[in-house]
């Protein structure tokens, strides 16, 4: 199940790219990482640290997209609240899939479009449980309306 934080103190918000670049190990670059890189970046993880991109040519793992880095971090590092604001809507499929088999935490402050996807999600603070886009959007709007400026 994924636990979603709509809001976090500044000191707890990580830079997805910097965190990934300084934290990833060989164990992180598993079948999930290959799937993420293939699905999101449309690239192939050739070996540890080397990715073949159809657009950029051979690149290092440090140059994959922020969304891919975030999804790999979610799967491999349970100690951190991954920054899902680095993920575009095209990451929703894999985020939903991961939530069905793993417990992890994310910071997500925009209304990601989940479409018809099913997922296991808990909203931090309210402890509300969401399994579809409608339930998630309701909780998101409730949080936005509660914000004071």
């Amino acid at each position, binding site marked *: 199940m994924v636990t979603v934080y709509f809001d976090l103190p500044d000191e707890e918000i990580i830079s997805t*790219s910097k965190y990934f670049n300084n934290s990833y190990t060989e164990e992180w670059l598993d079948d999930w990482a290959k799937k993420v890189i293939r699905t*999101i*970046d*449309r690239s192939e993880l050739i070996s540890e640290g080397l990715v073949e991109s159809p*657009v*950029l*040519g051979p690149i290092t793992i440090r140059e*994959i*997209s*922020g*969304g*891919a880095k975030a999804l790999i971090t979610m799967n491999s590092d349970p100690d951190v609240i991954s920054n899902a604001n*680095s*993920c*575009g*809507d*095209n*990451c929703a499929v894999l985020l939903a899939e991961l939530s069905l088999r793993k417990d992890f935490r994310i910071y997500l402050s925009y209304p990601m479009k989940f479409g018809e996807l099913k997922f296991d999600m808990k909203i931090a603070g309210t402890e509300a449980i969401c399994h579809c886009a409608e339930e998630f959007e309701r909780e998101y709007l409730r949080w936005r309306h509660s914000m004071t400026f």
Partner: protein
Amino acid sequence: METQHDILVQNKRKIQFKFSIYRKFTVIRGDSATGKTTNAKENAHELDHNLHRKTF
């Protein structure tokens, strides 16, 4: 007052970014792996290159 600037950045690999900036701030957003960061890096490189060309 002119408020829109059309920008084209291209490198030797023929990777091309076309976009328009409006007023003081332009937010670039979209799906992951569509080139937002690469675009920003290319722009920064281009600006740096132009700055050096004018300075030296």
